[in-house]
């Protein structure tokens, strides 16, 4: 990822300098074509899409994973971007998205599988994806606004955790420990975004150094993951039963966010 980024910067520099003759003093230097931006905030709701193939997973994994909830949040900050001629740009930023999987269905699954045991209410899982993201951007300038399609890639830390359930037998001290352990099958978790920003650039009176850009961002995200779920049912004093389920998910989601940026003039 970093090599691609560096190559792009080199391409910009090469392209910019190709048309400039060292003897032609009327041409502007490469750096004169550059301008910079930084994101103050990008934040908004995040809507994961339920994947139908999850419905067919065995051993309760369909109940555990399917019911991904809308209403998560996604936001980005600490961004730095550089644009050539206020059109083609690259940006690096820190992004964080969170989404929840409701636990009610999995609670019902455990209750029906173990009718003679108490099952405590299971609230579900909140998974967080965060890490650095890299963007390629292009601005289309119109009279009153600008449209900026972007391609974004990020290598993430996906915070997910193992879980265990205490199932106590009714009328007895006996119990079952039910655990779900997650083993990542991918070396890196990469997310891909297709984004369109619609922004209005505001010039502040008396301020020549920068402009504000305000607008909305719409994005479609995909984050392929592959996990082995190891399910262990351990009755006290008995022999554990272990089942393993490999789950590949695309984690499709779409989001709408408000964007506030500083754009620094040349």
């Amino acid at each position, binding site marked *: 990822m970093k090599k691609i980024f560096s190559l792009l910067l080199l391409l910009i520099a090469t392209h910019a300098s190709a048309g400039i003759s060292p003897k032609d003093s009327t041409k502007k230097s490469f750096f004169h074509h550059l301008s910079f931006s930084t994101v103050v905030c990008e934040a908004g709701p995040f809507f994961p899409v339920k994947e139908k193939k999850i419905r067919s997973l065995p051993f309760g994994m369909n109940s555990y994973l399917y019911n991904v909830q809308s209403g998560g949040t996604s936001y980005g900050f600490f961004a730095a971007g550089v644009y050539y001629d206020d059109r083609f740009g690259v940006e690096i930023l820190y992004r964080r998205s969170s989404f929840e999987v409701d636990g009610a269905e999995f609670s019902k699954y455990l209750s029906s599988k173990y009718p003679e045991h108490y099952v405590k209410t299971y609230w579900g899982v909140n998974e967080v994806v965060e890490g650095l993201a890299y963007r390629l951007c292009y601005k289309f300038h119109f009279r009153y606004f600008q449209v900026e399609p972007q391609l974004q890639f990020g290598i993430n830390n996906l915070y997910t955790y193992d879980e265990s359930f205490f199932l106590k037998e009714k*009328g*007895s001290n006996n119990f079952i420990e039910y655990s779900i352990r997650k083993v990542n099958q991918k070396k890196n978790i990469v997310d891909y975004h297709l984004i369109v920003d619609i922004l209005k650039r505001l010039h502040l009176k008396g301020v020549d150094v920068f402009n504000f850009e305000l607008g909305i961002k719409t994005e479609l995200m995909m984050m392929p993951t592959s996990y082995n779920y190891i399910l262990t049912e*351990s009755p006290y004093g008995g022999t554990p039963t272990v089942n393993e389920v490999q789950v590949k998910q695309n984690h499709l989601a779409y989001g709408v966010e408000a964007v506030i940026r500083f754009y620094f003039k040349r």
Partner: protein
Amino acid sequence: MRLINYPVLIFILLFTGCTTYDAYLYEVIDMKAANADNAGELTVATDADSISKKAYAIQLEYTMQFAGESGEDVDPHESGYQNKYNVTSFNVYCLDTFDMQHLPGTSINNYFLVSRGGSYTANNTIEQLVHNGTIGIGRGYSGNIIDTWTSTQYLILMQPPVNNGNYRFVIDIEQSNNTHMIDTIATHLY
């Protein structure tokens, strides 16, 4: 500002945010045992004459007394609590014949798991409790440091006796200040 000052400033900021505090100390001064019933979702103490042996538990109520601070840097919002004296032995035995392997006076520690009234696992053994060395808990900050308070713990009987009948259990806890807390309870198990 000189360039060298920036790393120094960052160093200072990082370390002033990482203050560690000394702990408040408590002593466990008393232990009372009672019969408990674990048939439901939670373990509860009971005065019933008979208890199902499959769901029998022993409630231990500890009385803690405030015993000062482990150092000078204490903060009522930040400091934790520490038991002044560790548990050095914890013994549960029956005054009656529990089963053929456990005649009167023989330890039946390995027949019990330890719980705080909610969940427990196969690792919550009495042996693990002694290894950790701590019984009782601190008192949460409520605006004042309270002199004495209580907490409960349960011993869950995982291996019931084969025969129904009357049983008397003794719990004997020794701490590192060479004190023993001993209590006896009697019940009818069916």
